[in-house]
């Protein structure tokens, strides 16, 4: 039953010409190895390097966004694509090689067994692999606290971009998905939509190429933006729920 689910692995790329070929090849290797029904969809978010030319030579579907939408908009393009084309599951994997394709089966398992609607690959459940910098972990702890306070669910790695959604979740993100730095905000959105979230331990690597979208000077803006976004998503969803039940 599990193998019959149609899976779309969405890989957002912004200037990932060095790493992207390896990422796609890894996914395709895991696909044949585990006989999974996977299509790979790369989303080129207006890269300024040769990413698009590289994508054209790869064994994958690709979307080429005409304007830069940021990670949230690029991911939503992939999720909408999955939703419209009848995929049962969509997985997000970064284009820089941080998320090893070998962990895909672990991420997919809870969806196959219908034990969760959202599966998040977490670095922190088992302390192995790349653990991210100290400053960043402070931020991640803060988001964990924020999510816990708002939706009462504890997600240890709320900034992890290694995630899998089932069709119920795809219907939600098809309607709305945060634009900028979407990961922590989306968790609150999922919690308020009563989606079952599950974290599974995965090992992550340091990036294989490219640069992080978040540097030190942007960190403060990141915290502020995500906090605001999270609070407003919470208020908006609460309002919608109140109207529905009224």
């Amino acid at each position, binding site marked *: 039953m599990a193998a019959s689910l*149609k899976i779309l692995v969405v890989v957002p790329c912004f200037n990932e010409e060095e790493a992207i070929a390896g990422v796609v090849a890894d996914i395709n290797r895991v696909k044949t190895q585990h006989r999974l*029904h*996977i*299509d*790979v969809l790369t*989303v080129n978010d207006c890269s300024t390097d040769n990413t698009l030319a590289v994508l*054209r*030579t*790869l*064994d*994958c*579907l*690709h*979307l*080429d*966004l*005409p*304007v830069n*939408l940021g990670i949230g*908009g690029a991911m*939503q*393009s992939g999720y*909408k*694509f999955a*939703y*419209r*084309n*009848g995929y049962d599951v969509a997985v997000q994997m970064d284009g820089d090689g941080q998320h090893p394709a070998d962990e895909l089966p672990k991420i997919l398992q809870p969806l196959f067994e219908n034990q969760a609607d959202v599966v998040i690959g977490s670095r922190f459940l088992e302390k192995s692999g790349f653990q991210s910098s100290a400053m960043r972990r402070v931020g991640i702890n803060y988001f964990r606290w924020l999510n816990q306070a708002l939706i009462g669910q504890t997600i240890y790695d709320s900034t992890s971009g290694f995630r899998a959604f089932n069709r119920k979740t795809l219907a939600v993100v*098809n309607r709305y998905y945060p*634009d900028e730095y979407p990961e922590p905000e989306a968790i609150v959105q999922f919690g308020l939509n009563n989606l079952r979230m599950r974290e599974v331990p995965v090992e992550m690597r340091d990036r294989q190429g490219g640069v992080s979208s978040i540097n030190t000077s942007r960190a403060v803006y990141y915290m502020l933006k995500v906090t605001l976004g999270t609070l407003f998503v919470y208020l908006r969803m609460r309002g919608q729920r109140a109207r529905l039940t009224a």
Partner: protein
Amino acid sequence: MESLPITIQIVSLLGAGLFMLYIFRLIVKGRLREEYSIVWILCTVILIVFSVWRDGLTKISLFLGVFYPPSLIFLAAIFAIIIFLVHLSVVNSKLQNQIKNLAQEVAYLKQQTPQHQPPASASLPIQEPVLTAS
């Protein structure tokens, strides 16, 4: 309290008139949409009214209990500017949302063109996606 001297009255009338003409020109040339021009036309009308009705500002200030009439102008102007800026931010957010949706649709359409399919040498995906209306 003295009313405004005649020179400043003429200058403000001229200024308001020219501004109004400029707004009309922008609309005629299609560079300003009518819905955004309403607020500017209103502002100009108010300016013209007070240029002609010289004691108006003083009278209204006295009525409202404002001791220094020009401060009433600043208060009203700043208030109007803030409201209009918020309005522009709302318009901007709406546009950004629309652009995002359009960009995504363009990407889906481009994806269906032949040069966006995976190369023939590579093994094809298991099933060609079929777009369904949503």
